[in-house]
């Protein structure tokens, strides 16, 4: 059976094509102003990579905050839309069958999900404040004048702990500027930023509790500077899968393959 999962996030659209339980293509691109067009372009890329056409895909499931933009709308014509939490749980289970806790940090949202056998037991979401999501790191990278992908490696070079007082993205930007003015190195500031976001995410996740195995997914999981402080805060090892930003789309594709679940 061939299915597809389409995850239309706040920043990126991701598509996974699944053939008999095996991933045959992955694709992602930034979501532009026209959400349906952006998602459709990514879908086309994935189809091309897999050497398939839309007619070969038996079922398509959409997830992410823009999921309704592709639901039953050509050319994607998603058959069903599921919430991010449900897709995350299914995807995480596919990647690590022993997973009990999923931490998903995207561009604008952070989620903590307790799962059992790929099903959601409990969850918590931060969707009101950018400080607990990827946008925070991007904004701080701008303030530090470094590339966002350099932030993580930079932070790993520091062993100093500098507390950040600001809880808000906008205030933290000013704080970063004043840290630079007081001659704190970019490495130390970068670590302080990662410690701050890890602190916010962990206090959210602790509300649902943490049980091993713990999986970290979402675009922010690509940042190597984020896992160490999070492991420290949560006192546990954390698994980061190979394609962390595709776990949710994978989950949607898995759900598409099991319509009677």
């Amino acid at each position: 059976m061939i299915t597809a999962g389409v995850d239309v996030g706040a920043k990126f659209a991701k598509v996974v094509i699944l053939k008999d339980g095996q991933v045959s293509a992955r694709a992602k691109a930034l979501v532009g102003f026209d959400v349906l067009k952006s998602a459709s372009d990514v879908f086309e890329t994935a189809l091309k990579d897999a050497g398939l056409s839309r007619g070969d895909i038996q079922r398509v499931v959409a997830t992410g905050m823009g999921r309704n933009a592709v639901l039953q709308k050509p050319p994607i014509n998603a058959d069903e839309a599921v919430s991010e939490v449900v897709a995350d749980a299914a995807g995480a289970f596919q990647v690590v069958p022993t997973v009990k806790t999923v931490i998903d940090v995207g561009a604008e949202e952070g989620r903590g999900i307790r799962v059992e056998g790929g099903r959601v037991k409990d969850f918590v979401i931060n969707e009101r404040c950018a400080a607990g999501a990827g946008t925070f790191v991007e904004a701080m990278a701008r303030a530090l004048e470094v590339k966002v992908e350099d932030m993580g490696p930079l932070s790993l070079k520091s062993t100093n702990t500098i507390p950040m007082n600001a809880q808000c993205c906008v205030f933290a930007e000013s704080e970063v500027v004043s840290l630079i003015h007081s001659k704190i190195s970019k490495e130390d500031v970068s670590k302080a930023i990662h410690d701050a976001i890890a602190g916010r995410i962990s206090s959210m996740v602790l509300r649902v509790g943490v049980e091993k195995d713990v999986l970290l997914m979402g675009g922010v999981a690509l940042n190597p500077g984020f896992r160490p402080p999070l492991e420290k805060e949560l006192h546990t090892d954390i698994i980061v899968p190979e394609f962390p930003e595709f776990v949710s789309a994978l989950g949607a594709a898995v759900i598409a393959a099991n319509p009677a679940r």
Partner: protein
Amino acid sequence: MKMAEVEVKTHEYWRWPEYRRTVSEKDWRNAGIITAGVDIGSVGSKATIMVDGELYAYSVMRTGGVSEDTAIKVTTWALEGTGIEVGKLHYVVGTGYGRVNVPFAKKTITEIACHARGAHYIYGPTVRTVLDIGGQDCKAIRCDEKGKVVSFLMNDKCAAGTGRGLEVFADLISVPIQELGKVSLSVDQEPPPVSNTCVIFAKAESLALLRQGWAKEKVAAAYHAAMADRIVDLLTRVGIEKDFVITGGVAKNTGIVQRLERILRIKPLEPKMDPILAGALGAGLFAKALYEKEQGLR
């Protein structure tokens, strides 16, 4: 995939003008007590020079990277041309976010107490609710007929509903910050507000609206409405009693003030002097009282 090019800014729309004034005709040489209130805010710093408990001169400037330097600069600037030297000030009180960094202050007092006291001075003894909207926080203060704080609530963790939120927005739509309020009021019909929980999200939504072809004015209305809603939430939690006044830099934004008025159905009193000075005025008045106490004059 093409990433956004580095932005080149030719204008700083967020940058509001700095200024100083001497407002009294009196000769300070005949005065008994000269005090100063220095309010080092997170975004703006204010110094008031008070002669026998009346405003004599003041200055308003941006807070720089080092609060101590700003405190010295803003005070010297307020004194400029008056003939008063820092050493002649009988008593200085520091307030605001950077109040511990005022080198010549004998005492520091919280901005909550200073704003209530300053509002009492600006608007008179009928004031019962003071809404102070500053650069990085928003406070709702209940006070009595003497200008003493009865209770208060403060939002200091999030930029939504503060002056910083307006600065971010001024840059986004390329309209100078002083004109934002007026621009936001130039719509025929009020559009639905953008999200009011986070400036970053509100900015992202505003950007999407601009790309959809909304006029700047309409987006400004949606943004101001969101800020007003957020401020009203805070005010309703502390409860509003007449007379109601608004202080702080954002009190100068008519788009926020008129929307608050519309939602709350209470007209705030008209300020008789620059409402951004409330905190510094309160500090200057406390300085006088403290000096009198110190000298056994009361």
